[in-house]
């Protein structure tokens, strides 16, 4: 019964917090460059406004274009509900597998890229082709990180990973450090953050994610935007859950640890959001053709972490 309750709370929590996290990142970024910036609640107001508006469709838009926002939103929302945030005792815990998570994210990416191509504009085409290029490097990098973690924990289940690292002092490991950096690089690229893509611009030749969703409007755009916010929350939760799960309520503790787990999770989320804003303010966007090196570096780090762990195990 507790796990059902926890799962419901988790589903509501990820959707409710996601716009707030994006708002926090925007607010801190604005403050760092000396602007006042919109309040924390601005993303919620934006979404409410977009939801009230009618969607405008291009004449040659097919069913694919119309159904993509719903596909992407549900896929990412479900994926975010799988990652343990404040407790590991979730109803869907047995399904929360790292490889399944990568598949969900891949499906969302696939549909977004198809929608970008479907409408037939040149911007959409550029965005989709770049997204596909980044995807071919980012997904293997995530997989190497997963292999590293699962070599250590002997499981790909997120619940097991979080409990193993939180309870049985693994200690600080070089391979975990490398895997963490690889995952951060991938998270930056996947969420269209600054060294790779600029989340704050709509009309720039180098944009990737915004180029694919340029044709969306009204409630479709609202779904796409909230999906992007949920994805940011998902990656941050994933990093927290795998590398810093301390304070999470384990299955044995049950409902008693929920309050504390929730507080710790919120604190970690705020810390992550502020760190992201500081990082984005202090770095310049890179050329598109350097992104393959950036992501290639993540892949290499993941591989290195795996080799390191594997060989030092075997010998």
């Amino acid at each position, binding site marked *: 019964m507790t796990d059902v309750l926890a799962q419901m709370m988790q589903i509501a929590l990820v959707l409710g917090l996601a716009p707030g996290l994006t708002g926090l990142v925007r607010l801190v970024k604005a403050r760092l460059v000396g602007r006042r910036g919109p309040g924390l609640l601005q993303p919620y107001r934006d979404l409410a406004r977009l939801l009230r508006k009618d969607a405008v469709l291009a004449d040659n838009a097919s069913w694919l274009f119309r159904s993509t926002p719903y596909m992407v939103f549900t896929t990412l929302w479900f994926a975010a509900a799988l990652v343990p945030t404040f407790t590991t005792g979730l109803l869907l815990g047995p399904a929360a597998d790292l490889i399944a998570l990568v598949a969900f994210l891949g499906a969302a990416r696939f549909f977004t890229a198809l929608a970008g191509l479907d409408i037939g504009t040149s911007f959409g085409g550029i965005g989709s082709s770049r997204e596909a290029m980044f995807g071919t490097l980012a997904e293997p990098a995530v997989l190497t990180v997963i292999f590293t973690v699962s070599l250590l924990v002997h499981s790909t289940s997120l619940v097991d990973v979080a409990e193993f690292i939180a309870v049985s002092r693994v200690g*600080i490991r070089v391979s975990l*450090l*490398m895997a963490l950096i690889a995952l951060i690089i991938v998270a930056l690229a996947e969420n269209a953050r600054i060294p790779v893509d600029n989340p704050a611009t709509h009309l720039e030749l180098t944009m990737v994610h915004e180029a694919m969703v340029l044709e969306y409007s009204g409630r479709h755009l609202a779904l796409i935007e909230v999906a992007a916010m949920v994805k940011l929350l998902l990656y941050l939760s994933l990093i927290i859950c795998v590398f810093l799960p301390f304070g999470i309520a384990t299955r044995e503790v049950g409902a008693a640890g929920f309050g504390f787990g929730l507080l710790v999770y919120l604190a970690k989320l705020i810390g992550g959001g502020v760190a992201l804003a500081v990082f984005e303010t202090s770095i310049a966007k890179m050329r598109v053709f350097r992104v393959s090196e950036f992501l290639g*570096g993540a892949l*290499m780090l993941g591989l290195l972490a795996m080799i390191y762990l594997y060989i030092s195990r075997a010998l």
Partner: protein
Amino acid sequence: MTSLEYDIAHLFDGTVLLLSFMLLYQRRLFGVINTFAMQALVLAAAAAWQAHIHAAPHLYVTAGIALVFKAIVIPYVLHRVIRTFGIHRTIDTALGVGPSLVAGASLVALSIMLVLPVTFASGALTRESLALALSTVLLGLLMMITRRNAVTQVVGFMSLENGLILAAVGVEGMPLVVEMSVAFSVMVAFIIFGIFFFHIRERFDTLDVQYLETFRGERR
């Protein structure tokens, strides 16, 4: 030695290796120098940590040399040399960034496979530290091979030397660590002077400083 102390020592070693990879990744001279300064800083921290956990005060000297000389003085001098001579600030690579990172990863695998079997008798800290240090040495060599600029060659050499110091401080009871780091520092200084003189010669066709006076218009 407790497991936390072990982990922290290990983490410093890993960070030095990671910064070696960052050196290979950089495309600008100032980026290379700043990354090197950071590596020297982490090396100093690693040496100081080893001094603390092994209660070996002479290692603090090594840490101090790494901190003052390599993290502050040499990067400053290299900055000056680049500014004064107007050296081209992008890096000319003999092997692209991607392939050199791949080569670096395989060198790390090689050094782990080489070090771990031959050091079965030693403790875990020594073994893995040695593997990481050997990887840093090999990456420094790789940097010297694949980057054409004289300044990056010096930085490659110094990061190789960082690997050697890392190995020396990681092994318990290694004699002459301090002397070794002093000797290496002197050698690096000579190499930097070498670049300096090389550039003077290139510009004035001689190493005779009198020509500088003609150049400044002080000689009748």
